[in-house]
């Protein structure tokens, strides 16, 4: 859209930043991507998100929007002429928000128990929790191709960014998501076939390398 300036402040390994990238791609929007170094946050980031000081931040014509799911909703509402990401029916919308919220409340923290585990027991606990969450999500997915039904949408966007971290979870906690949750991995493959998703996600092996390096620096390994 002529005259619209979009800047995304992000860190490429973030599963939350991935949500925003995917939403922007789904809407066919041009934007400037700026990589943040979270050890040395830019003045712009601190100015645009003074409350949380976190990425992702979307800056639209100079005005910041923070919190990934809020940004995705903003993108969906502002550019509402095509590719709706959320359902229009209020009840379906409430269901979509519920699942995105469930993912936010549960998956990140349980995943961290694996990646930043201080011992095997913690990693094992994280693994159990992550698998439980995945099984619940499989239930929500049912036989549908995507969480919203026939079309890729809000809940899919909320979850698929974690794809980047699956290899790290599996390798550190020694398990196979495919073996335990084949339906979810079928959904995962389906999403990765979308160009908008494939170009928005970093390489899972590169994410794993970063986790290993960080673990050494933190003295966990």
């Amino acid at each position, binding site marked *: 859209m002529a005259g619209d300036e979009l800047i995304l402040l992000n860190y490429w390994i973030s599963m939350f930043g991935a949500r925003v990238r995917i939403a922007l791609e789904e809407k066919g929007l041009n934007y400037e991507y700026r990589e943040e170094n979270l050890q040395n946050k830019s003045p712009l980031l601190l100015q645009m998100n003074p409350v949380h000081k976190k990425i992702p931040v979307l800056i639209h014509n100079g005005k910041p929007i923070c919190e990934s799911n809020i940004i995705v909703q903003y993108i969906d509402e502002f550019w509402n002429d095509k590719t709706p990401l959320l359902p229009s029916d209020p009840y379906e919308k409430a269901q979509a928000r*519920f699942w995105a*919220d469930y993912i936010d409340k549960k998956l990140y923290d349980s995943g961290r128990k694996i990646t930043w585990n201080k011992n095997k027991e913690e990693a094992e606990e994280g693994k159990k929790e992550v698998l439980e969450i995945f099984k619940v999500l499989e239930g929500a997915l049912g036989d549908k191709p995507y969480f919203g039904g026939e079309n890729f949408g809000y809940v899919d966007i909320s979850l698929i960014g974690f794809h980047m971290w699956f290899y790290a979870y599996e390798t550190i906690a020694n398990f196979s998501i495919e073996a335990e949750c084949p339906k979810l991995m079928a959904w995962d493959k389906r999403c990765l076939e979308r160009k908008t998703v494939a170009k928005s996600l970093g390489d899972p092996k590169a994410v794993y390398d970063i986790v290993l390096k960080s673990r050494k620096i933190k003295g966990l390994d």
Partner: protein
Amino acid sequence: MPTNEELLLLDLWVSPFSTRVKIALAEKGLSYKTQEEDVLGGKSDLLLKSNPLYAKVPVLLHNGKPVVESTNIVYYIDETWPSPQLLPACSYGKSTARFWADFIDKKVFDAGRNIWQSKGEELEAAKNEFIDILKKLEGAMGDKDYFGGDKFGFVDVILIGLTTWFYAYEKYGGFKIEKECPKFAAWVNRCKERDSVAKNYIDPERTHEFVGLLRKMHGVE
């Protein structure tokens, strides 16, 4: 409201999250039935069936279909009965309101719990953190009468119900919000003048008693 619309709220009288939903329903002039849940005793089959993942109140059943998580319920109420609108009309205003609703949900109740669950140095730290959060919210409101501007709106609904527990925090934390955050206290009083709030505002002394019970249960006293 058409006579075939049925609204049932699964409720706990002291829950600030239930209060939040009741205020939203009142703002929209909606009639509804309540079913009091004995969350400490035994949860009803209806609650367990309607909210299998969390088994928590409030749950709003609209013509038998459940919506769970109080903020999600308020969004649903606002979208299903759009007049008077609680969320701002423009996308950017909406995302700002969502941001602060999210901030409130992430911070306020937990910070309050840290106050009534702790003693000594921990209590002092918890009190300071709580006051800091209220100061951030004062900053968000600025010189406006309400979070949304001149009109009572979405963020006001999300926050005002939680203030029914603040008297308890003041008592256990040994501080007065009127002294530490006078703007915030003025906003609370302004909101309490509204019918929707006045009719649903739980007597702070009763909440204080309830929190006292919780403290005993948690072995704080």
